[in-house]
Protein backbone atom coordinates (compact mmCIF):
# COMPACT_ATOMS: atom_id res chain seq x y z
CA UNK A 1 0.00 0.00 0.00
CA UNK A 2 1.37 3.37 -0.99
CA UNK A 3 2.00 5.66 1.93
CA UNK A 4 2.61 9.38 2.10
CA UNK A 5 5.04 9.97 4.95
CA UNK A 6 6.54 13.43 4.74
CA UNK A 7 4.32 14.54 1.88
CA UNK A 8 3.18 18.08 2.44
CA UNK A 9 0.32 20.06 0.97
CA UNK A 10 1.33 23.62 0.27
CA UNK A 11 -1.11 26.44 -0.25
CA UNK A 12 0.20 29.01 -2.71
CA UNK A 13 -1.49 32.33 -3.32
CA UNK A 14 -0.63 34.12 -6.58
CA UNK A 15 -0.36 37.87 -6.18
CA UNK A 16 -0.44 38.92 -9.83
CA UNK A 17 -0.98 37.71 -13.39
CA UNK A 18 2.68 36.79 -13.79
CA UNK A 19 2.58 34.48 -10.78
CA UNK A 20 -0.73 33.12 -11.99
CA UNK A 21 0.85 32.16 -15.30
CA UNK A 22 3.73 30.44 -13.48
CA UNK A 23 1.34 28.40 -11.36
CA UNK A 24 -0.70 27.35 -14.38
CA UNK A 25 2.32 25.45 -15.66
CA UNK A 26 3.13 23.74 -12.36
CA UNK A 27 1.64 20.39 -13.23
CA UNK A 28 3.69 20.23 -16.41
CA UNK A 29 6.97 20.54 -14.46
CA UNK A 30 7.27 16.80 -14.03
CA UNK A 31 10.45 16.78 -11.92
CA UNK A 32 8.56 18.20 -8.93
CA UNK A 33 6.10 15.24 -9.02
CA UNK A 34 3.29 17.48 -7.85
CA UNK A 35 -0.31 16.48 -7.32
CA UNK A 36 -2.44 19.57 -7.78
CA UNK A 37 -5.33 19.30 -5.32
CA UNK A 38 -6.88 22.65 -6.07
CA UNK A 39 -5.94 24.25 -9.34
CA UNK A 40 -5.32 27.78 -10.40
CA UNK A 41 -8.37 30.00 -10.37
CA UNK A 42 -7.27 33.59 -10.27
CA UNK A 43 -5.14 36.17 -8.54
CA UNK A 44 -5.49 35.95 -4.74
CA UNK A 45 -7.19 32.55 -4.88
CA UNK A 46 -5.22 29.70 -3.30
CA UNK A 47 -3.70 26.78 -5.15
CA UNK A 48 -3.09 23.58 -3.15
CA UNK A 49 -0.43 21.10 -4.20
CA UNK A 50 0.81 17.88 -2.61
CA UNK A 51 4.58 17.65 -2.75
CA UNK A 52 6.57 14.46 -2.05
CA UNK A 53 9.41 14.81 0.47
CA UNK A 54 12.23 14.24 -2.01
CA UNK A 55 11.26 17.30 -4.10
CA UNK A 56 10.03 19.47 -1.26
CA UNK A 57 13.17 21.55 -0.80
CA UNK A 58 13.66 22.09 -4.52
CA UNK A 59 10.06 23.06 -4.96
CA UNK A 60 10.11 25.49 -2.06
CA UNK A 61 13.26 27.06 -3.52
CA UNK A 62 11.43 27.40 -6.83
CA UNK A 63 8.56 29.18 -5.08
CA UNK A 64 10.95 31.45 -3.19
CA UNK A 65 12.88 32.31 -6.32
CA UNK A 66 9.66 33.48 -7.99
CA UNK A 67 8.49 35.34 -4.91
CA UNK A 68 5.46 33.04 -4.65
CA UNK A 69 3.96 33.14 -1.18
CA UNK A 70 3.01 29.81 0.34
CA UNK A 71 2.01 28.19 3.59
CA UNK A 72 1.97 24.58 4.70
CA UNK A 73 -1.62 23.39 4.72
CA UNK A 74 -0.81 19.79 5.70
CA UNK A 75 2.51 19.01 7.41
CA UNK A 76 2.34 15.26 6.91
CA UNK A 77 -0.33 13.71 4.73
CA UNK A 78 0.25 10.24 6.14
CA UNK A 79 -0.53 11.41 9.68
CA UNK A 80 -4.00 12.45 8.50
CA UNK A 81 -4.48 9.22 6.59
CA UNK A 82 -3.53 7.22 9.70
CA UNK A 83 -6.11 9.15 11.74
CA UNK A 84 -8.72 8.55 9.05
CA UNK A 85 -7.96 4.82 9.02
CA UNK A 86 -8.15 4.57 12.80
CA UNK A 87 -11.45 6.42 12.77
CA UNK A 88 -12.90 4.01 10.20
CA UNK A 89 -11.66 0.99 12.13
CA UNK A 90 -13.10 2.16 15.42
CA UNK A 91 -16.42 3.07 13.78
CA UNK A 92 -16.65 -0.41 12.28
CA UNK A 93 -16.11 -2.13 15.64
Amino acid sequence: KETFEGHQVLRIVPKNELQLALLKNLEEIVEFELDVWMGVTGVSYPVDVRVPPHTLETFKSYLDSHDLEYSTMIEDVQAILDMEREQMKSAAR
Partner: protein
Amino acid sequence: LVQPRNTDSFDYANYHTLSEIYSFQDMLVAENPNLVSKIVIGQSYEGRPLNVLKFSTGGSNRPAIWIDTGIHSREWVTQASGLWFAKKIVTDYGKDSALTAILNNMDIFLEIATNPDGYYFTHTSNRMWRKTRKPNPGNSCYGVDPNRNWDAGFGLPGASTNPCSETYHGPSAHSESEVKSIVDFVKSHGNIKTFISIHSYSQMLLYPCGYTTTPVKDQAELHSLAEKAITDLASLYGTRYRYGSIINVIYQASGSTVDWTYEQGIKYSYTFELRDTGSYGFLLPAKQIIPTAEETWLALMALMDHTYKNPY
Protein backbone atom coordinates in the same frame (compact mmCIF):
# COMPACT_ATOMS: atom_id res chain seq x y z
CA LEU B 1 -17.27 -6.24 12.88
CA VAL B 2 -20.89 -5.35 13.23
CA GLN B 3 -22.74 -4.95 9.95
CA PRO B 4 -25.72 -2.57 9.98
CA ARG B 5 -28.94 -4.54 9.71
CA ASN B 6 -30.85 -1.79 7.97
CA THR B 7 -30.39 1.71 6.63
CA ASP B 8 -31.58 3.22 9.92
CA SER B 9 -28.62 1.77 11.77
CA PHE B 10 -26.17 2.61 8.97
CA ASP B 11 -23.45 4.98 10.17
CA TYR B 12 -23.78 8.03 7.91
CA ALA B 13 -21.17 9.92 9.90
CA ASN B 14 -18.33 7.70 8.78
CA TYR B 15 -16.61 6.72 5.58
CA HIS B 16 -17.38 3.31 4.12
CA THR B 17 -15.81 0.75 1.83
CA LEU B 18 -17.20 -0.03 -1.60
CA SER B 19 -18.76 -3.29 -0.43
CA GLU B 20 -20.53 -1.41 2.38
CA ILE B 21 -21.89 1.06 -0.19
CA TYR B 22 -23.15 -1.80 -2.36
CA SER B 23 -24.79 -3.43 0.70
CA PHE B 24 -26.39 -0.13 1.66
CA GLN B 25 -27.92 0.19 -1.81
CA ASP B 26 -29.41 -3.29 -1.62
CA MET B 27 -30.80 -2.65 1.87
CA LEU B 28 -32.40 0.61 0.77
CA VAL B 29 -34.06 -1.10 -2.20
CA ALA B 30 -35.29 -3.98 -0.02
CA GLU B 31 -36.74 -1.60 2.56
CA ASN B 32 -38.46 0.66 0.01
CA PRO B 33 -39.58 -1.54 -2.87
CA ASN B 34 -42.28 0.87 -3.99
CA LEU B 35 -39.94 3.83 -4.19
CA VAL B 36 -36.39 2.66 -4.85
CA SER B 37 -34.95 0.27 -7.38
CA LYS B 38 -31.42 -0.47 -8.47
CA ILE B 39 -30.33 -0.25 -12.08
CA VAL B 40 -26.97 -1.54 -13.26
CA ILE B 41 -25.99 0.76 -16.13
CA GLY B 42 -22.72 -0.98 -16.94
CA GLN B 43 -19.48 -2.32 -15.57
CA SER B 44 -16.29 -0.59 -14.57
CA TYR B 45 -13.02 -1.54 -16.25
CA GLU B 46 -12.31 -4.07 -13.47
CA GLY B 47 -15.80 -5.53 -13.77
CA ARG B 48 -17.59 -3.88 -10.87
CA PRO B 49 -21.26 -3.01 -11.33
CA LEU B 50 -22.12 0.61 -11.99
CA ASN B 51 -25.19 0.85 -9.78
CA VAL B 52 -27.74 3.64 -10.02
CA LEU B 53 -30.55 4.04 -7.51
CA LYS B 54 -33.83 5.01 -9.14
CA PHE B 55 -36.33 6.83 -6.95
CA SER B 56 -39.70 6.70 -8.64
CA THR B 57 -43.34 6.76 -7.62
CA GLY B 58 -44.50 5.34 -10.94
CA GLY B 59 -45.21 6.48 -14.44
CA SER B 60 -43.22 5.75 -17.52
CA ASN B 61 -40.07 7.56 -18.56
CA ARG B 62 -40.95 10.55 -16.45
CA PRO B 63 -38.78 13.67 -16.62
CA ALA B 64 -35.81 12.94 -14.42
CA ILE B 65 -33.05 14.34 -12.28
CA TRP B 66 -29.60 12.75 -12.31
CA ILE B 67 -27.12 13.08 -9.42
CA ASP B 68 -23.70 11.43 -9.33
CA THR B 69 -21.07 11.41 -6.63
CA GLY B 70 -17.52 10.14 -6.50
CA ILE B 71 -16.38 10.26 -10.12
CA HIS B 72 -13.07 11.42 -8.63
CA SER B 73 -12.55 8.50 -6.29
CA ARG B 74 -10.44 10.17 -3.61
CA GLU B 75 -13.12 12.78 -2.84
CA TRP B 76 -14.68 10.52 -0.22
CA VAL B 77 -17.04 13.12 1.18
CA THR B 78 -18.97 12.98 -2.09
CA GLN B 79 -19.74 9.24 -1.91
CA ALA B 80 -20.54 9.65 1.79
CA SER B 81 -22.90 12.51 0.96
CA GLY B 82 -24.51 10.36 -1.74
CA LEU B 83 -25.40 7.75 0.88
CA TRP B 84 -26.94 10.43 3.06
CA PHE B 85 -28.92 11.87 0.10
CA ALA B 86 -30.32 8.42 -0.70
CA LYS B 87 -31.60 7.98 2.84
CA LYS B 88 -32.86 11.56 2.92
CA ILE B 89 -34.98 11.01 -0.18
CA VAL B 90 -36.78 7.98 1.26
CA THR B 91 -37.16 9.66 4.66
CA ASP B 92 -38.55 12.92 3.33
CA TYR B 93 -40.85 11.51 0.66
CA GLY B 94 -44.38 11.93 1.96
CA LYS B 95 -43.23 14.36 4.67
CA ASP B 96 -41.51 17.20 2.84
CA SER B 97 -44.03 18.77 0.48
CA ALA B 98 -41.50 20.06 -2.05
CA LEU B 99 -39.69 16.72 -2.41
CA THR B 100 -42.99 14.84 -2.47
CA ALA B 101 -44.26 17.03 -5.31
CA ILE B 102 -41.05 16.48 -7.24
CA LEU B 103 -41.18 12.70 -6.81
CA ASN B 104 -44.85 12.54 -7.69
CA ASN B 105 -43.96 13.96 -11.08
CA MET B 106 -40.32 13.16 -11.72
CA ASP B 107 -37.78 10.41 -11.11
CA ILE B 108 -34.44 10.84 -9.39
CA PHE B 109 -31.41 8.78 -10.40
CA LEU B 110 -28.48 8.65 -7.99
CA GLU B 111 -25.11 7.05 -8.77
CA ILE B 112 -23.17 6.96 -5.51
CA ALA B 113 -19.98 5.18 -6.54
CA THR B 114 -19.43 6.54 -10.03
CA ASN B 115 -15.81 5.36 -10.22
CA PRO B 116 -15.87 2.13 -8.18
CA ASP B 117 -12.46 0.85 -9.29
CA GLY B 118 -10.86 4.10 -8.22
CA TYR B 119 -12.77 4.11 -4.94
CA TYR B 120 -11.71 0.53 -4.16
CA PHE B 121 -8.13 1.51 -4.99
CA THR B 122 -8.28 4.45 -2.56
CA HIS B 123 -9.18 1.99 0.21
CA THR B 124 -6.67 -0.70 -0.65
CA SER B 125 -3.64 0.82 -2.36
CA ASN B 126 -3.51 4.57 -2.75
CA ARG B 127 -5.75 7.00 -0.88
CA MET B 128 -4.76 9.76 -3.32
CA TRP B 129 -6.16 7.99 -6.40
CA ARG B 130 -8.51 10.13 -8.46
CA LYS B 131 -8.74 8.57 -11.94
CA THR B 132 -10.12 5.36 -13.40
CA ARG B 133 -7.99 2.21 -13.27
CA LYS B 134 -7.67 1.27 -16.92
CA PRO B 135 -4.09 0.69 -18.09
CA ASN B 136 -2.74 2.99 -20.78
CA PRO B 137 -1.08 0.89 -23.50
CA GLY B 138 2.59 1.70 -23.88
CA ASN B 139 2.71 3.67 -20.65
CA SER B 140 3.28 2.59 -17.07
CA CYS B 141 0.76 5.10 -15.69
CA TYR B 142 -2.83 3.96 -15.16
CA GLY B 143 -6.14 5.64 -15.53
CA VAL B 144 -7.95 8.53 -17.11
CA ASP B 145 -9.52 11.58 -15.51
CA PRO B 146 -13.20 10.75 -16.00
CA ASN B 147 -14.07 14.43 -15.83
CA ARG B 148 -11.99 15.17 -18.95
CA ASN B 149 -13.21 12.18 -20.96
CA TRP B 150 -16.51 13.51 -22.30
CA ASP B 151 -17.22 14.46 -25.87
CA ALA B 152 -17.44 18.19 -25.28
CA GLY B 153 -14.33 20.05 -26.33
CA PHE B 154 -12.52 16.75 -25.84
CA GLY B 155 -8.75 17.12 -26.07
CA LEU B 156 -8.73 20.92 -26.12
CA PRO B 157 -6.57 22.88 -23.67
CA GLY B 158 -7.68 22.24 -20.10
CA ALA B 159 -6.86 18.54 -20.06
CA SER B 160 -3.56 16.73 -20.24
CA THR B 161 -2.26 14.51 -23.04
CA ASN B 162 0.09 12.84 -20.54
CA PRO B 163 -1.24 9.53 -19.12
CA CYS B 164 0.70 10.19 -15.92
CA SER B 165 -1.15 13.45 -15.28
CA GLU B 166 -4.12 13.64 -12.93
CA THR B 167 -6.05 15.39 -15.72
CA TYR B 168 -5.24 12.95 -18.55
CA HIS B 169 -8.18 13.03 -20.96
CA GLY B 170 -7.79 9.48 -22.23
CA PRO B 171 -7.23 8.08 -25.73
CA SER B 172 -10.65 9.12 -27.03
CA ALA B 173 -13.91 10.63 -25.82
CA HIS B 174 -15.96 8.14 -23.76
CA SER B 175 -13.07 5.67 -23.72
CA GLU B 176 -13.82 4.92 -20.06
CA SER B 177 -16.67 2.50 -19.41
CA GLU B 178 -17.60 4.52 -16.30
CA VAL B 179 -18.25 7.50 -18.60
CA LYS B 180 -19.68 5.60 -21.58
CA SER B 181 -22.23 3.85 -19.35
CA ILE B 182 -23.63 7.22 -18.24
CA VAL B 183 -23.57 8.51 -21.82
CA ASP B 184 -25.55 5.49 -23.01
CA PHE B 185 -27.98 5.77 -20.11
CA VAL B 186 -28.61 9.49 -20.61
CA LYS B 187 -29.14 9.04 -24.35
CA SER B 188 -31.44 6.04 -24.00
CA HIS B 189 -33.48 7.70 -21.25
CA GLY B 190 -33.93 10.86 -23.28
CA ASN B 191 -35.89 12.75 -20.65
CA ILE B 192 -33.33 13.86 -18.09
CA LYS B 193 -33.91 17.51 -17.23
CA THR B 194 -31.29 18.13 -14.55
CA PHE B 195 -27.82 16.64 -14.29
CA ILE B 196 -25.75 17.30 -11.19
CA SER B 197 -22.23 15.93 -10.85
CA ILE B 198 -20.77 16.26 -7.36
CA HIS B 199 -17.09 16.76 -6.59
CA SER B 200 -15.10 18.16 -3.70
CA TYR B 201 -13.46 20.46 -2.60
CA SER B 202 -13.22 24.27 -2.84
CA GLN B 203 -16.86 25.28 -2.46
CA MET B 204 -18.19 26.09 -5.88
CA LEU B 205 -21.34 25.56 -7.90
CA LEU B 206 -20.57 25.65 -11.58
CA TYR B 207 -22.42 25.45 -14.86
CA PRO B 208 -21.21 25.09 -18.49
CA CYS B 209 -18.95 25.79 -20.20
CA GLY B 210 -15.46 24.74 -19.27
CA TYR B 211 -13.79 24.62 -22.66
CA THR B 212 -14.94 27.92 -24.11
CA THR B 213 -15.57 31.41 -22.80
CA THR B 214 -18.63 31.77 -25.04
CA PRO B 215 -21.60 31.93 -22.67
CA VAL B 216 -24.25 29.24 -23.03
CA LYS B 217 -27.67 30.44 -24.13
CA ASP B 218 -29.23 29.74 -20.73
CA GLN B 219 -26.46 31.47 -18.79
CA ALA B 220 -28.71 34.09 -17.16
CA GLU B 221 -31.12 31.48 -15.79
CA LEU B 222 -28.35 29.09 -14.74
CA HIS B 223 -26.57 31.93 -12.97
CA SER B 224 -29.57 33.13 -11.01
CA LEU B 225 -30.53 29.56 -10.08
CA ALA B 226 -26.97 28.91 -8.88
CA GLU B 227 -27.19 32.02 -6.74
CA LYS B 228 -30.43 30.78 -5.19
CA ALA B 229 -28.94 27.33 -4.58
CA ILE B 230 -25.81 28.59 -2.85
CA THR B 231 -27.84 31.06 -0.80
CA ASP B 232 -29.99 28.19 0.46
CA LEU B 233 -26.87 26.14 1.13
CA ALA B 234 -25.29 28.93 3.15
CA SER B 235 -28.41 29.36 5.26
CA LEU B 236 -27.54 26.29 7.33
CA TYR B 237 -23.92 26.73 8.41
CA GLY B 238 -22.84 29.88 6.59
CA THR B 239 -20.64 27.99 4.12
CA ARG B 240 -19.87 30.38 1.30
CA TYR B 241 -19.71 29.16 -2.27
CA ARG B 242 -18.51 30.78 -5.47
CA TYR B 243 -20.60 30.23 -8.56
CA GLY B 244 -20.51 30.79 -12.30
CA SER B 245 -19.39 29.06 -15.46
CA ILE B 246 -16.54 26.57 -15.13
CA ILE B 247 -14.10 28.53 -17.27
CA ASN B 248 -14.80 31.81 -15.52
CA VAL B 249 -14.78 30.54 -11.95
CA ILE B 250 -12.11 27.84 -12.06
CA TYR B 251 -10.05 27.45 -15.21
CA GLN B 252 -10.25 26.03 -18.67
CA ALA B 253 -11.31 22.40 -18.42
CA SER B 254 -12.14 20.48 -21.56
CA GLY B 255 -14.12 17.26 -21.90
CA SER B 256 -16.01 17.77 -18.66
CA THR B 257 -19.23 16.02 -17.68
CA VAL B 258 -21.70 18.87 -17.53
CA ASP B 259 -20.51 20.47 -20.76
CA TRP B 260 -21.50 17.23 -22.49
CA THR B 261 -24.84 16.95 -20.69
CA TYR B 262 -25.70 20.57 -21.50
CA GLU B 263 -24.90 19.94 -25.16
CA GLN B 264 -27.26 16.96 -25.03
CA GLY B 265 -30.04 19.39 -24.20
CA ILE B 266 -30.04 19.00 -20.40
CA LYS B 267 -30.46 22.65 -19.52
CA TYR B 268 -29.93 22.37 -15.77
CA SER B 269 -26.41 20.94 -15.82
CA TYR B 270 -24.37 21.74 -12.74
CA THR B 271 -21.28 20.53 -10.98
CA PHE B 272 -20.56 21.01 -7.29
CA GLU B 273 -17.29 21.32 -5.43
CA LEU B 274 -18.27 20.59 -1.84
CA ARG B 275 -16.97 22.21 1.31
CA ASP B 276 -13.36 22.70 2.25
CA THR B 277 -12.57 23.24 5.89
CA GLY B 278 -9.40 25.02 4.85
CA SER B 279 -7.30 22.42 6.63
CA TYR B 280 -7.46 19.09 4.92
CA GLY B 281 -8.63 19.51 1.34
CA PHE B 282 -10.53 16.46 0.19
CA LEU B 283 -9.26 14.54 3.25
CA LEU B 284 -12.24 15.90 5.11
CA PRO B 285 -12.65 14.52 8.65
CA ALA B 286 -15.64 12.18 8.95
CA LYS B 287 -17.36 14.53 11.39
CA GLN B 288 -17.79 16.90 8.42
CA ILE B 289 -19.80 14.40 6.36
CA ILE B 290 -23.25 15.11 7.74
CA PRO B 291 -22.92 18.92 7.81
CA THR B 292 -21.62 18.76 4.23
CA ALA B 293 -24.50 16.56 3.09
CA GLU B 294 -27.09 18.59 4.96
CA GLU B 295 -26.09 21.91 3.46
CA THR B 296 -25.62 20.43 -0.02
CA TRP B 297 -29.10 18.93 0.16
CA LEU B 298 -30.58 22.43 0.46
CA ALA B 299 -28.86 23.43 -2.77
CA LEU B 300 -29.94 20.20 -4.47
CA MET B 301 -33.52 20.88 -3.44
CA ALA B 302 -33.30 24.38 -4.93
CA LEU B 303 -32.10 22.93 -8.24
CA MET B 304 -34.65 20.10 -8.27
CA ASP B 305 -37.54 22.32 -7.24
CA HIS B 306 -36.72 24.85 -9.95
CA THR B 307 -36.63 22.06 -12.54
CA TYR B 308 -40.00 20.78 -11.40
CA LYS B 309 -41.56 24.24 -11.53
CA ASN B 310 -40.00 25.21 -14.85
CA PRO B 311 -40.62 22.33 -17.25
CA TYR B 312 -39.05 22.57 -20.68
